[in-house]
């Protein structure tokens, strides 16, 4: 299908139709920040935001998930809960968060020999259509261009809307996106060459306004050589172990499993966990392979920039900048990797 445009004043109509036919999830502002929620009234959608506070990984990889329900005793039973089928259209995803999904796929939906799949993540992802929005004005700590994407990148999305002022330019990227367009009434117009040029201009301006860059070239090899360097001690001294970086990161996926029940029945639930917590690797015997903050901060940096690349080929980072924006002690991942490049061994 060719690319399309949609006049801006028709957007509420399109969203209302989606909300009526499917489930619409979009960015809503409440209590001073934006998060992805189910939208009934398209007026609730707030597109003035740049990125949501909590990343949209929470839509597929939910914070609390019941893995199975059980009844105890001699007649014990275990049962996987049904996830209700129904199409979800997620509107307003930024290209960096879309890359986050692509990075979570090898972990939660691994396709290599011997990998297991998480049915909850998979089912939710399979029945969702991702409609992205380009970032016309990136923020200070955006560095998505340091990875293979940009503020108007079409990677990992089904449709991409770019704001051209009075209309949206729509890149139709996958079959899923095409199906969505076909199922909506004819509000769209084929895009002209002129409009395509406008869209590229918007992209170019946005890319130029991204000032911070992470030097990722050679990071994997360099990190492999400096595991015991004193740099990690210096950089982690001020870490207070709050874990905000892990909760707000679109690619962090560590989780905890606990049983929660009443006397006879209950469920095994999965909740987000953080490697910054000392209990994370605490053995029952009392031994803790990562006893100090230095070990944990170093492990986080290595997981993102050395271990995951070695196992699955790409950096486990999307360049969204949330960890830099919300770290209370200003631990700056861009500076860390750039420092790593400069350090002489």
């Amino acid at each position, binding site marked *: 299908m060719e690319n399309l445009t949609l006049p801006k004043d028709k957007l509420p109509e399109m969203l209302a139709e989606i909300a009526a036919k499917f489930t619409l999830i979009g960015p809503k502002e409440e209590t001073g920040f934006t998060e992805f929620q189910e939208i009934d009234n398209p007026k609730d959608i707030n597109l003035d935001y740049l990125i949501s506070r909590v990343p949209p990984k929470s839509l597929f990889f939910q914070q*609390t998930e019941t893995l199975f329900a059980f009844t105890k005793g001699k007649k014990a039973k275990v049962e996987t809960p049904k996830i209700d089928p129904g199409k979800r259209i997620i509107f307003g995803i930024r290209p960096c968060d879309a890359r986050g999904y692509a990075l979570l796929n090898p972990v939660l939906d691994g396709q290599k020999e011997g990998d297991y799949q998480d049915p909850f993540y998979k089912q939710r992802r399979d029945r969702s259509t991702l409609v992205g929005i380009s970032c016309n004005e990136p923020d200070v700590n955006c560095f998505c261009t340091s990875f293979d994407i940009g503020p108007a990148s079409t990677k990992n999305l089904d449709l991409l809307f770019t704001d051209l002022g009075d209309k949206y330019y729509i890149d139709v990227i996958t079959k899923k996106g095409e199906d969505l367009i076909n199922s909506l009434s004819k509000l769209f117009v084929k895009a002209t060459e002129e409009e395509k040029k406008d869209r590229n201009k918007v992209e170019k301006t946005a890319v130029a306004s991204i000032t911070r860059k992470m030097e990722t070239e050679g990071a994997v090899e360099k990190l492999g050589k400096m595991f015991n360097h004193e740099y990690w001690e210096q950089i982690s001294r001020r870490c207070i172990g709050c874990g905000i970086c892990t909760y707000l990161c679109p690619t962090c996926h560590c989780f905890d499993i*606990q049983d929660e029940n009443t006397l006879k029945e209950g469920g095994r639930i999965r909740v987000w966990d953080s490697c910054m*917590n000392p209990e994370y690797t605490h053995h029952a015997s009392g031994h803790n392979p990562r006893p100090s903050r230095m070990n944990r901060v170093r492990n986080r940096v290595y997981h993102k920039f050395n271990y995951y690349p070695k196992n699955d080929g790409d950096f486990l980072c999307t360049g969204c900048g949330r960890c830099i924006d919300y770290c209370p002690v200003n631990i700056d991942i861009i500076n860390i990797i750039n420092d790593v490049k400069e350090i002489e061994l």
Partner: protein
Amino acid sequence: MADNRELIKAVKETVSREDVKYVIGYKKGTYGFQIMPAFAYDTKEAEEFIFSPLCAKNLATYPKLEEKLPLRRGDKEDTRKVGVVVKGCDSRAIVQIVQEKGLKREDVVLIGIPCKGVIDPKKIDKMFPKQRELAEVEEDESNNYLVTINGKTHKVPKNELISDVCRSCEYPNPVAYDILIGSEIEEVEVENFERVENLETKSLEERWAYWENHFSKCIRCYACREACPLCYCNECMVDLLEPQWVRRSVNLSENTAWNVMRAFHLAGRCISCGECERACPVNIPLMELNKFVEKEVRAMFDYTSGIDEEAKPLLGMFKPDDPEDFIL
């Protein structure tokens, strides 16, 4: 306000002492209005220390964060002191921890700085968004902040940028210190509990609706707990599994339990530094809860936390003449 040169001199003096391991203070961050905690192990590193209205972080969390790792055979534990740069509220935190026997007063060297209030990072970010270059802020004599960005200085009334907790700060001067930088501040605010009165006038239904809205957003990241200088329990009640007090699943019921229980565990201990509210990524107005409890504590026990090193912690002691008419 404090003179940076005087501060650096005091830090150099402290770090040169034989019995001091390192000194913790503030230095310039990596972008915009950021300030990062700095650790000076020698006099050279001390030169980077600064103090400005942007230095909001409560450094009193660090002395308790030091890990006691197992030692190699033959090595002795390094029991030297730690120097900390403290504002009024930070020093109260240290005093409160000393009261509870969490630290010994001799283990820390306090470099006190009288403080007229710090800037709320959310407010200044809203006023001057997308700052890449490092900016500087000073306070002038007429209650304005002078914000210098890229060479241009903007004058902003203090009221528009100051942190809410600092509005009613009763202790601008450090209550305990070994070295004092600059001179003590004469005018002191009076605690009027204005944030609490907001809630007190609402009906019960309105209050539940208000807090339900906020607690349902809580993501249980526990940043409030880690940022708080007084949350230093080795095993927090919310991490315990035997027995389990608060479940780990994230829903309104458990989130309410966590936030309310934390406020109760801080009764008679919270020193109103506002770090919890600053750290919270989902904007929960935690100081309203803490201030509410503080108001009750003052009314019932006429007790203020973190003032007197020799005082006994409020809820950790029992006097024979405490009222018991509700028991017998």
